[in-house]
C-alpha cells in the first residue's frame, strides 16, 4: 500500500484532535494542578459545619493551592463532619496548623484555608487538625444580626 494524500489528512486530523484534548487538559482544565495520588499525604479535619464545601474543593495556604478535599463524611459519634484532605508532599505544615472553610468572593466556591502555626513538629500522614473553623452559614449570620438588632432596639426603649 502506498502513502497517499489522504493519509496526510488523517494524520493532521488525529494530531489536531489529540492537540485539542491536550489544550483542554492544560489550558482549560487543571491537569497541571491535579495531584497524583502517590504524591500526597492525608490529614483529617473535623468541622462543626462544612457549609457548601464539596469533594475536590481546593486546600489553599496563603492563596496557593496545596491540596484537595478527598472525602467528606459525617462522624456518627461526634456529629461532626470529617473532611479528608490530600495534601501535596512538597508542602509540609506545622502540627498546630489551623484550617478554616472560606469562600472565594461573595458567591464563589468554598475552599479550605490553612493557617500555619509555630510548632516544630510537622503534620504527618493521618494527622488530625486540632484547630478548625467552620463555614460561615449566611442564614445563621443574618438571624444573629437581626436578633442582636432586635435586642438592642428593645433595650433602647427601656
Amino acid at each position, binding site marked *: 500500500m502506498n502513502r497517499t494524500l489522504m493519509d496526510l489528512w488523517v494524520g493532521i*486530523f488525529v494530531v489536531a484532535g489529540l492537540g485539542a484534548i491536550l489544550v483542554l487538559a492544560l489550558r482549560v482544565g487543571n491537569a497541571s494542578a491535579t495531584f497524583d495520588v502517590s504524591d500526597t499525604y492525608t490529614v483529617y479535619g473535623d468541622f462543626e459545619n462544612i457549609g457548601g464545601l464539596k469533594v475536590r474543593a481546593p486546600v489553599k495556604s496563603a492563596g496557593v493551592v496545596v491540596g484537595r478535599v478527598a472525602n467528606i463524611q459525617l462522624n456518627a459519634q461526634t456529629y461532626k463532619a470529617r473532611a479528608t484532605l490530600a495534601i501535596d508532599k512538597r508542602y509540609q505544615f506545622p502540627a498546630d496548623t489551623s484550617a478554616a472553610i472560606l469562600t472565594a468572593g461573595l458567591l464563589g466556591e468554598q475552599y479550605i484555608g490553612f493557617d500555619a502555626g509555630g510548632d516544630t513538629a510537622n503534620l504527618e500522614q493521618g494527622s488530625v487538625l486540632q484547630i478548625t473553623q467552620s463555614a460561615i452559614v449566611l442564614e445563621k449570620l443574618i438571624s444573629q444580626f437581626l436578633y442582636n438588632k432586635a435586642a438592642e432596639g428593645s433595650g433602647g426603649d427601656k
Partner: protein
Amino acid sequence: MLKPLLSGFSHIGRQVIDGTWRLGYATRFFLLVLLRSGLSFTRFGLVVRKVYFSGVLSLIIIIVSGLFVGMVLGLQGYETLVRYGSAEALGTLVALSLVRELGPVVSALLFASRAGSAITAEIGLMKATEQLSAMEVMAVDPIARVVGPHFWGAVISMPLLASLFSAVGVFGGYLIGVVLIGVDDGAFWSQMQAAVDFRHDILNGIIKSAVFGVAVAAIATFEGYDAPPTAEGVSGATTRTVVTSALAILALDFVLTAFMFTGQ
C-alpha cells in the same frame, strides 16, 4: 363499533412486535460487527480511509459550529453574569458547558447528520448496486471488509471531533468575552482552570463522545446494511439514521450525565 378499536390495537401490537424484531436483528448485527472486526485491525489502512471519510470530511462543520457555539455562549453568558457582577466567571461557564455537555452532544448531532448519513448512504448504495453481494460471492465478508472499517472509523473520529469542538468553542468564548467585551484575561483563564477538572469534566466529556460515537456508528452502519436495495429504501434509511441517532444521543446523554455529574 368495536372493530376499529380492535384493528387499532392490532396495529399497535404489530408495530411493537416489528420494532422488537428489528431491535434484536440490529443487536445481532452489532455483535457480528464487533466479532468480525479482526480484519479492520490487521489491515488498518482500511480504517484510515474511513477515518478520512467520516472524520476529516466533518472537520469544517465541526470547527465552524464550535466557534459559533462558543461565541454565542460568550455573549449570552456575559449578559447574565454581568448582572450579578461576576463577569470573571465567564470562562468557567463557557468551558464547563462546552466540555461537559455542548461539545459532546452538539458535535455528535452534527456528526450523525454529516458522517452518519453518508455512511448509511454509502453502505446502502453498495447493497442496492449488488456490490455487497459481489463481495460475498468473491468469498470476502462484507461485514468485515466494509462495515467494520466504517464502524471503527466513526468510533475513532467522534472523540477527536468533540474535543476539537470544545477547544474551538472555548476559543470562541475567549474571543467574545475577552477580546471583544473586555473581561479580564487572567480572571477568565484562572477561574476556568480552577473550576474545570481534568478527570471529572474533560475525561467524562470524552467518554461521553466515545459512547455517542459507538451509537452513531452502530445505527448508521445497521441502517445502511438493512436498507431496502432501492433508491427510496436508501433515502429512507438515511433519514432514519439521522433521526434515530439524534434520539439515541440525547437519551444516552441524559443517562450518562446522571451517572457522571450527580451525587457529588
